[in-house]
């Protein structure tokens, strides 16, 4: 029934799209055909990726508040100089754009802690799932499920638990302690931002590591058993070295994602309290789209800094990936 209903419009669409292809083929032969098939994709990449890249570069060297590039005065390195104007780069309070440096150091702290802990948990989970357990598919699904939830939903789930009169504080009171303002205390807010982002993403990395573990040849373990190697020795001499390429890819992949953290945190803490959980992407978004005076040039300069970081990380990833076998990954 559905098939018949869909058949008519699909057939009509087929005829409409076929026409130019058929015409081009009869007029010019085979030569333009691949380009015709590539055209929509290349057009979209051109307009929404490559063109913006060039404009972003130009933006970063212009000032003013106009959106249209030709109306923006060229200011050279002013934006970048302002961003980097610090007496001491390790102390954001001495910087002209203190929020930028707070965002940088927050992002650095977040990335290191989040990636280390998340990869550790993912590895442990993958090792557990790689044992002979009953219902492995189910357990794998349990750890993977949060990966599919939207960042906004993830943030709201935890906001509901962490709010002042939420489940966690009820448990604290029940245990005889007193409630804590989890999201309005700077250190706790950072802790929960890291915790929640691990909760939401570790299933993805667990899956990659599990696939890596299952690809390790079984005879290596049989050989280790013959030699009466201890479990720890088997792990450190067989599992870990064989898993190393996957582990490195997972680390870099997680790092690339971590420096771009925004969505969950924006909804969970809004970058606060103060600027305790403000990260680079939020700095860009805030500077370009939230303030009364929209400093597009400054935001673009911030993007440029982020782009440099990402390019370095991606090159490292490509290097590792070409050294071992591994996958690429991105959100579309």
């Amino acid at each position, binding site marked *: 029934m559905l098939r018949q209903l869909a058949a008519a419009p699909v057939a009509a669409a087929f005829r409409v799209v*076929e026409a130019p*292809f058929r015409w081009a*083929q009869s007029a010019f032969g085979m030569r333009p*055909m*691949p*380009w015709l*098939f*590539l055209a929509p*994709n290349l057009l979209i*990449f051109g*307009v929404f*990726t*490559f*063109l*913006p*890249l*060039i*404009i*972003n570069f130009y*933006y970063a060297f212009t000032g003013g508040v106009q959106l249209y590039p030709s109306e923006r005065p060229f200011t050279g390195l002013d934006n970048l100089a302002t961003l980097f104007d610090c007496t001491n780069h390790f102390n954001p309070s001495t910087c002209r754009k203190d929020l930028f440096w707070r965002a940088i150091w927050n992002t650095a702290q977040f990335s290191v802690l989040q990636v280390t802990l998340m990869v550790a948990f993912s590895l442990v*989970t993958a090792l*557990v799932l790689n044992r002979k*357990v009953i219902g492995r*598919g189910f*357990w794998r*699904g349990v*750890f993977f499920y949060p*990966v599919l939830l*939207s*960042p*906004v*939903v993830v943030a*709201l*789930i*935890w906001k*509901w*638990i962490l709010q002042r009169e939420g*489940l966690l504080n*009820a448990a604290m009171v029940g245990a005889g302690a007193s409630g804590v303002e989890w999201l309005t205390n700077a250190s706790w807010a950072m802790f929960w931002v890291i915790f929640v982002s691990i909760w939401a993403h570790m299933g*993805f990395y667990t*899956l*990659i590591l*599990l696939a890596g573990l299952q690809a390790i040849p079984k005879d290596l373990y049989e050989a280790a058993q013959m030699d009466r190697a201890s479990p720890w020795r088997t792990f450190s001499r067989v599992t870990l070295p064989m898993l190393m390429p996957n582990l490195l890819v997972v680390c870099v*992949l997680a790092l690339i994602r971590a420096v*771009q953290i*925004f*969505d969950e945190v*924006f909804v969970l803490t809004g970058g606060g309290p103060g600027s305790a959980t403000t990260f680079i992407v939020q700095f*860009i978004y805030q500077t*370009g789209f939230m303030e009364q005076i929209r400093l*597009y040039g400054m*935001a673009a300069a911030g*993007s440029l800094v982020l782009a440099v970081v*990402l*390019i370095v990380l*991606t090159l490292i990833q490509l290097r590792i990936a070409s050294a071992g076998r*591994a996958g690429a*990954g*991105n959100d*579309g």
Partner: protein
Amino acid sequence: MVDFLTRRRGGRRLDWTDWVTYGYLASGLLLMFGPVLWLVMSSFKTESALTEFPPSLLPTGPKMVAVTGVDKPRPLFKVTLPDGSVRELAELRRIGLTATMVDPAHPETEIKVPIDQRQPIRAFGLATENYTDLAGKFAFGTYLWNSVFITVIATIFTLLFNSMAAFALSKYRFSGRKTVFLLILSTLMVPPTIVLVPNFLVVSELGMLNSLWGVIWPAVATPTGVFLLRQYMLTLPDELLEAARMDHASEWRIYWRIVLPLTAPALAVLAIFSVMWRWNDFLWPLVVLSKSEKFTLQLALNAFQGDLVTQWNYLLAMTVLTLLPVTVVFAFLQKYITQGIASAGVK
């Protein structure tokens, strides 16, 4: 008994490592599903039950009863009267430590009761009005429609455009093929976050600000999609295409009638991912869509939680409805999703 339960095939008993394993998995279950379950259970609580502290586990709240002469339902209490008898009375008002209460059956006689002489009566009840009110009180239908529209249209275009590109890159030999492939793959390095400002300009110049198309178009060409489909199409034998060309089939017909149906498994994987991506998108829609009638569900959730007075009962219900489609997709297609990720490393 314990012997019997812990016995396993092959005669080997569960040793301590198995206990640790299942302990770990069980706590994982609690930690991963617990918060979601708590959200779902909370979403069925009434507004007054949500403000209780400590919160009750199940959606229970004070039992309310209608009293003639009073417009709102009043909470019901079990009261121990001075003569030792126990009665169920409804509270009219409370001043300090004394409450004025009535028997719902005889609303004319008011009784003063010290509040330490009474126990609230609780009842189990699902506050389904949290869900049913959504359509009337908020433009929930609009947000849902916007989200569905973006997800469906973007996914159709994603499948079409990416499979066309993948077809060209896998089934034709032409100069520049390698360059184009590398160019497309290189866009992996350009996440939307670093072209936020200029893309805003491009979209506004194209007149697509506050238009759902402004969210759809930039999203439909994906390097991951091209890569995934190309790898799959490379495994299709070229002889099929040659045979069709012998029969004078046009190139478009070969793509549409031969290659595309054979690529169905890879297309299915990409479709699942595309639906997830677009349904969950946040930052880019946040920049493009600023009018509330264009909000997607994600943007609406974000806007409501930022309100000065958060109406948690509606917010929770809306959150549950937002995670529902993804959960259903996951429940049925878990195998394909996990296999797709394990094989291609996409998310």
